[in-house]
């Protein structure tokens, strides 16, 4: 079984790595390295001890967090070799534990048991967070935080932890010698933590928290080369664009809370199943679209796709991990997780946005020359595929594609990283060429990845893509006016094959265009090659149905509330992509036919039977047709590409083509001017508004205040002048008179103290005599 294989190879790699570190770090292993070994052993034992799902879940997400904190505080100065081994151990243990969960899920699938763990099921611990009074019941109800572990979680855990582990390994070689080496691993730790918790949690609020946290770690990692202007700008752009989407997400959450007063996914689903909000379809639509906004931001769907190509400023392993395999898939995961809350309108929007993104990004990818940008646009396009798949109801196909895409896209990115590393940070494909002989491992693994993404049979991408196309076709057959989705997706598949092989041909074949770089090109260290090989194996075989994975998806990774094995035609499922639409139409038709007194439930039963049958027919037809068409399209794309870019058999000159296309080429080359459009409208608008407001604030509001001050000063000036000219004049005059006479009187002041005493005595005597005279005068009178 391939999962077991993966797990074992992971373990072996881990062990090998630690042995490697212990032997090469110096003659005497430092105490901390001994500790490492002990911790590692302890962790493996822990894996066996942590039998409870909750313990496993907690360990899975908290270990990378721990590594983040350790590295941030002690990484640079206090740990040998920057503490990278801590990050390796943490993610390694997470991977072990993730595998054990996955193993249980697969085991349950094989034995036909249920696989679902949630806090309400009893064996998952829950944590009571903040509490509020529920207005419906009047009771204080805490928000319960817990885990929701089902097959989807298991597979997501495996994808995230697995690729994260491989990227860690790859980074050991790729990032060697970079400044802030240990900070880099710290950032990877916080990313792994938030992404793992994102897939584990059962609470939308926590999910939102993780959602933002992955955004931040993405910000940190894109801006890792912090002193590069473009990296800084790209990081900011990524975060802000995501924030726009998150705004919608947040509003969606407000609607959720307003209606359900809980964020527990399970409780929301239960309430929905019990008919809550059945009478407010518009609110439901808004809620769904709001939540989808988050996905649009994170999964870089049109119109918020602009950040992803710029995000390639980050280190290449980061692009592989975050911007290809895991974080950007979070949007798809979100829509999948919340599948039951969307209604028909929302699904239509989702489908069209996904389709549009798929085809738009694919066309742009043809024209790009930066190897990472091509891959970025290809990622966009594939994400569009997944979103469109969810929109058309091909739930398990979308997640299947998510998984296979994670493997082959991570592979492609790591390969491109290997190429870039080999050419000393040269990213322009026009300066590459002829590398096939120089870097054999990279060439072969990249070819594998390309074949997988192009949808060549027997490679994983073929199976998943085929399923999506089948789903789209099915939906198109049920609702013929939406058939355009299928056609667009098919076209996008062809274009994908074309531009991916363009990349291969330009990079690995032909004559080297930059001979100097070519001569110095070399394969990376083994830490870089091992992940490539592992991923290549996964890119080939993760789609093979006979290994069980395809079946697992088909039967186990299904929306909540639908019975296993009957993924897409549950009675409660939305009507858009089930034959329920058929059933209704036919039902009404039959009803009209039998309007004359026949029993009412008979035609309905008829219709149900017909729709059951019809659905199977549709499914089968769609499958076959889609498979044939997709093989055809992929082959023609590859051939066309070879004719254009493989120098040995070239018959078409791409430059001439570009000239012939003229303005169309320019349009596509400049990414449909979306960036420019935003710059001219939103950025410029914001700039104008903020400048106007700032000026308003300074001139008008503050002006009023200062004006009031000035009026006061003016009045006080006037009154001051009155004071000076009139009031003060009088005072002065009095003073002058006093002074005049004072000059005369002051001669009395001799300065001789005896004199004063005499005068005092004399005055006293005079006064007494006067008083006596007056008294006697009056009394005498």
């Amino acid at each position, binding site marked *: 079984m391939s999962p077991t294989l993966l797990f074992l190879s992971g373990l072996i790699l881990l062990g090998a790595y630690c042995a490697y570190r212990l032997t090469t770090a110096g003659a005497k292993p430092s105490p901390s390295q001994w500790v490492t070994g002990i911790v590692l052993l302890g962790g493996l034992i822990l894996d066996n001890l942590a039998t409870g799902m909750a313990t496993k879940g907690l360990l899975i997400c908290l270990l990378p967090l721990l590594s983040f904190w350790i590295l941030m505080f002690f990484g640079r100065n206090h740990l040998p070799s920057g503490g990278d081994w801590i990050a390796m151990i943490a993610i390694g243990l997470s991977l072990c534990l993730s595998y054990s969960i996955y193993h249980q899920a697969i085991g349950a699938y094989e034995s036909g048991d249920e696989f679902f763990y949630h806090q309400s099921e009893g064996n998952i611990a829950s944590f009571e967070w*903040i509490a509020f009074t529920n207005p419906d019941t009047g009771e204080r109800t805490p928000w319960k935080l817990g885990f929701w572990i089902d097959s989807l979680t298991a597979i997501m855990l495996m994808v995230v932890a697995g690729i994260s582990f491989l990227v860690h390994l790859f980074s050991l070689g790729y990032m060697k010698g970079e400044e802030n080496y240990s900070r880099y691993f710290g950032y990877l730790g916080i990313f792994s933590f938030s992404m793992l918790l994102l897939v584990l949690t059962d609470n939308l609020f926590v999910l939102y928290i993780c959602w933002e946290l992955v955004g931040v770690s993405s910000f940190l990692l894109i801006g890792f080369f912090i002193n590069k202007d473009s990296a800084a700008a790209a990081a900011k752009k990524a975060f802000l664009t995501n924030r726009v989407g998150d705004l919608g997400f947040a*509003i969606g959450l407000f609607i959720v809370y307003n209606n359900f007063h809980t964020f527990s996914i399970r409780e929301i689903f239960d309430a929905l199943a019990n008919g809550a909000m059945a009478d407010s379809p518009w609110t439901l639509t808004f809620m769904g679209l709001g939540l989808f906004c988050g996905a649009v931001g994170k999964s870089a769907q049109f119109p918020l796709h602009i950040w992803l190509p710029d995000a390639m400023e980050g280190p290449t392993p980061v692009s592989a991990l975050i911007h290809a395999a895991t974080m950007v898939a979070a949007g798809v995961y979100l829509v999948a997780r919340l599948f039951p809350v969307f209604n028909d309108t929302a699904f239509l929007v989702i489908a069209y946005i996904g389709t549009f993104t798929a085809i738009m990004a694919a066309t742009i990818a043809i024209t790009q020359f930066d190897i990472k940008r091509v891959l970025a646009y290809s990622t966009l396009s594939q994400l569009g595929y997944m979103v469109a798949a969810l929109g058309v109801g091909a739930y398990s196909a979308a997640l299947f594609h998510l998984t296979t895409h994670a493997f082959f896209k991570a592979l492609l990115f790591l390969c491109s990283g290997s190429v870039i590393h080999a050419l000393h940070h040269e990213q322009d494909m026009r300066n590459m060429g002829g590398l096939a002989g120089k870097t054999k491992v990279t060439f072969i693994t990249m070819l594998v990845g390309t074949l997988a993404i192009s949808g060549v049979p027997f490679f994983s991408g073929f199976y998943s893509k085929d399923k999506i196309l089948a789903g789209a076709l099915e939906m198109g057959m049920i609702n013929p006016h939406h058939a355009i989705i299928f056609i667009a997706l098919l076209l996008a598949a062809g274009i994908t094959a074309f531009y991916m092989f363009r990349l291969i041909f330009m990079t690995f074949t032909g004559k080297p265009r930059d001979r100097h770089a070519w001569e110095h090109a070399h394969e990376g260290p083994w830490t870089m090659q091992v992940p490539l090989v592992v991923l290549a194996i996964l890119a080939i075989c993760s789609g093979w149905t006979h290994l069980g994975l395809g079946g697992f998806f088909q039967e186990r990774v299904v929306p909540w509330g639908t019975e296993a094995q009957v993924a897409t035609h549950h009675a409660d499922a939305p009507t858009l992509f089930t034959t329920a639409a058929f059933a209704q139409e036919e039902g009404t038709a039959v009803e009209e036919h039998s309007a004359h007194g026949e029993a009412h439930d008979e035609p309905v039963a008829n219709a149900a039977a017909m729709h059951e049958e019809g659905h199977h027919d549709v499914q089968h037809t769609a499958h076959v047709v889609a498979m044939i068409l997709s093989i055809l399209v992929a082959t023609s794309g590859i051939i066309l590409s070879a004719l254009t870019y493989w120098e040995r058999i070239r018959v078409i000159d791409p430059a001439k083509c570009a000239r012939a296309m003229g303005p169309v080429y320019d349009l596509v080359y400049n990414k449909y001017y979306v960036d420019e459009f935003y710059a001219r409208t939103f950025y410029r608008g914001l700039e104008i508004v903020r400048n106007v407001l700032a000026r308003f604030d300074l001139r008008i509001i503050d002006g009023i205040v200062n004006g009031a001050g000035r009026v006061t000063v003016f009045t006080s000036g006037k009154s001051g002048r009155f004071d000076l000219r009139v009031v003060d004049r009088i005072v002065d005059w009095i003073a002058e008179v006093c002074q005049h006479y004072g000059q005369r009187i002051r001669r009395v002041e001799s300065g001789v103290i005896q004199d004063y005493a005499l005068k005092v005595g004399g005055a006293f005597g005079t006064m007494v005599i006067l008083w006596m005279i007056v008294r006697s005068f009056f009394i005498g009178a």
Partner: protein
Amino acid sequence: MSGLVIITFLPIIAGCILALAPLPNDTVRKASLAVTLAILAISIPLMWNFGEAYRAVSPEVSEAANSPMPFVYETNVKWIETFNINFHIGVDGLSMPFVFLTAFLCPLCILASWGIGEKVRGYFALFLLLEGGMIGTFVALDLFLFYVFWELMLLPMYFLIGIWGGPRKEYAAIKFFLYTLFGSIFLFIAMLVLYWKTGTFSLVELPGHEGLGDLKWWVQIALFLGLYVAFAIKIPAFPFHTWLPDAHVEAPTAISVILAGILLKMGTYAIFRISFPIFPVATAWFCTPLAVLAVINIVYGALCAMAQTDFKKLVAYSSISHMGFVMLGMAVYKEEAMQGAVFQMFNHGCITAMLFLLVGVIYDRAHHRDLAGFGGLVKPMPLYGGYAAFAFFAALGLPGLSGFISESLVFLGAFQEQKLLACIGTLGILLGAAYMLWTYQRVFMGPVNEKYKDYKDMNKIEIASLLPLAVMVLVLGIFPFIFLDMLAPTVSNLLAHLHVGREEYEAMRTAAEQVAMNLHP
């Protein structure tokens, strides 16, 4: 003697002693640090035991609307008997956090003012006086006493800005002083009217006092609006906010911290403490305009912040934006929102304090705050860059840090009442992220500015003043219930009172509509 009395008067007395005693500068610094630490040490057990103590006196939920708002740690002594003025202090869930916040921020500010070199004694004496005034304002339960402390706080602030401030310090100090004094007039008038109607200044007796029953509705509204102006100036709410950027820009670092961290909270705290319980009907009338003003504050503050080139001014405008969240939370009758509002007040205190301290760090080195003049500071000062990133992310509401919890609680509550306004308000989050990141990019990222490449990283004192705040923000971000549980009974008591007022208001409005209907059938 209750701990509250001690922490109210200890700083005032210590400040007076410091002002008179001719001590050497270093002793003055250490002494004031010791005093503020002592206050913190006293306030920690008060805070710790508060939840239990309050629950013990809190009425049953069903009784909450009819019983007076409970307080704990009360001290009630007759002061001026002729006018029935009492020295009445005590705390509930609205004030205790801020008493603690004051006690918590002041030692950090003392650390941040370690470098003050001129007139050291005066500075620290005034600072301690200010701390006493602030704590007094939060604990006062007598309107007159409240007013006394409210004004007492003003004076040291005026001198601290006016003497130790930047180049335009006189302008800023006078603007601040006159603005606040202008507001105080309304407070004073309202206080007199209330006394004249009821014969008491007690904030415990005034809510629901029968003497207020016969107040005409328009008098209620006029008084409420007057009080609102008085407090809006302190918040500061649009359009009374322009003193803030000037005061912040000119004030020394520690004073900016106090200004943003605590003084701004006085406005919203006073609305919670005075306007809401005393005029519940007017509150119901005013809640929608208040929400509109709040959203204006949020969006307007954020947009203005975006246009600033002065680091400190940017932070000042961001304060305006963040206080808008508090107002929005106050304006809706929802438990989540009210708790969120109080929590946001606390968090904003911590986060903005961090931001101002960070600005101070770079200002001490570069002696300018022009955002365009920096660049790539992470490289010479990695630790500084790290703290700055933490603070900036906290300010833009990163989940896992406390600001996010309070903002989202506010919005969760607000959305239930005012859907459209809440949605517009969320724009503030986006804009907040935009200006914060843009600033971070301009100052810390990008190519290293040659001028600054030899700068020393933060020293121990600077770290000591930032680290406690960072820990607080992180811990409250992950375990917000520590704070919210303490707050919850108070908020539900207040809400119970407010709901009564709202029902009364609704009844009045329906009656008025009936009359109108009859007049114009």
